[in-house]
């Protein structure tokens, strides 16, 4: 497996500069993360972030970012109603329904 060498100063950098706050990111991503996982992810995500810093070697000052490889723009369709899933089909995979609707957790405080 060809693995590009990590820079020698990497270990040093890793010790004094943590780039990612896993707890905060997990909250943003709405993911439950245990304390053990937090430590593990912190190390792994730091590794990945350090690795991808190689991109800084590429000069992109004059480059416009690619936003799409297809060259297609403004793809629209006729706004017409077509047959779709029945209510029963749409609800088939949910665990919790109420009178033919999806039952979800409360979003607003009841008080």
């Amino acid at each position: 497996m060809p693995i590009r060498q990590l820079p020698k100063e990497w270990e040093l950098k890793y010790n004094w500069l943590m780039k990612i706050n896993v707890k905060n990111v997990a909250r943003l991503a709405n993911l439950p993360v245990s304390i053990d996982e937090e430590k593990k992810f912190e190390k792994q995500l730091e590794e990945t972030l350090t690795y991808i810093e190689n991109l800084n070697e590429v000069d992109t000052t004059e480059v416009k970012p690619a936003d799409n490889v297809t060259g297609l723009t403004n793809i629209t369709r006729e706004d017409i109603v077509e047959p779709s899933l029945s209510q029963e089909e749409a609800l088939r995979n949910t665990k919790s329904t109420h009178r033919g609707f999806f039952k979800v957790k409360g979003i607003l405080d009841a008080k």
Partner: protein
Amino acid sequence: MLNRLSVKQVKNGLKEKRFSSLEVTKACLDAIRKTDEKLHSFVTVSEEEALRDAKNADEKISKGEDAPLQGIPLAIKDNFLTKGIRTTASSKILDEFMPTYDATVVLKLKDAGMVILGKTNMDAWAHGSSTETSDYGATRNPWDISKLPGGSSGGSAAAVAAHQTIAAIGSETAGSIRQPASWCGVVGLKPTYGRVSRYGIVAMGSSLDSAGPITKTVEDSALILSVLAGKDPKDATTSPLKLKLKIESDIKGLRIGVSPQYFINGIDPEVESGVKNAVKTFKELGAEIKELELFDPNYAIDVYTIIQRSEVSSNLARYDGIRFGKDRSYFGEEAKRRIMLGTYALSSGYYDQYYNKAQKVRAIIIEDFRKAFEKVDVIIAPTSPSLPLPVGSTKDSSMFGELADVLVEPSSIAGLSGINIPVGFSSSGLPIGAQIIGPQFQENAILGFAKSFEENTQNAAWRKNEPSFTEVSKGKPNL
């Protein structure tokens, strides 16, 4: 032995009434029964549906009704929604998910007359290149079951190699068709981005995802592509360009680019010599070989990592476990890592540094290929820098896939077409694959080169090699 046939051979046999679709289907189901406990290519075997489809096909054939894949048994990667057949994307979070509609690809295959054998194993959510991160256990490589099949479409590639199916469907974000095809010694086609609809495929990296066939022959690949291709109103990225399939295996005078950057540091010497021998064969067939300087593929690892994780985080941000599946606490480690890295890369203050930078380098890669294809018709390179790696290789490597896929990432990032073809074997009996990369919407060109190679190596000694692990293996399976 009917399971060992190609799509074309089954088509001919059905047409000449030498056997029925039911017989071919039963042969495949039998092979699955005998081998899948060890290989584990399938997450779900849909025996009932397969037998029903086969009987229907036989009835249609007896009435003289023809369709491009009438009565052909196929296996579908488990990230394609199949109405009434469980679809998990190899993630336990979707363990009980029973789709109420078909992916466009599946619908097209059904319309073309396929018999659906079942759903093949993959890395959970397609997040990987080994099929080892499946929540349902790893798939093994039929050539040596102590090795990985590659991934994420590893189940599909292994099923084709082990003759559990006539052909299979896979999907690729960057390498997930070509790399497992390479490691399993079969043909894997990644069509141009936008050639085939993504509707109803469990989304991974939406600006990269492409669906395509994994087959025993190049001709089968072309036939299945012709069924899959086309504009879909349900996927706005599908191209209005029509596929006019015309495969010329005469490559005299055509130009092949070979880039030293793709024979990267650390490449397996047997892979290198295998691919260079294939290039030599092309030269003997009259192609002009040109050395080509390409943008260092190593940077594609970084671009791909950022773009893919960003798109994963955006796609899976919408997953709530309310309408189907289990809740977000059931995400596996790999999915969590990817969602978090993507969330971070897209978060306020970091967007420019990561996502925007990656999209700029992506633009450089696209332009680099555009210029290259002014000089050559196709580019040939190794598909994977290594031979199939041992089971367990992904453990503790959070970037295993990105590194394993270094040579397929640039063309995926640029949305190009590419195909893996088997070009020989290592001294240890493991398959070696080469990829042929073409410009966007030039599937005819890459399939032509692939066919030319296949035709002209048909009698090569290595073509007689058989995977050590199929239902007919004479010796002891290589455990």
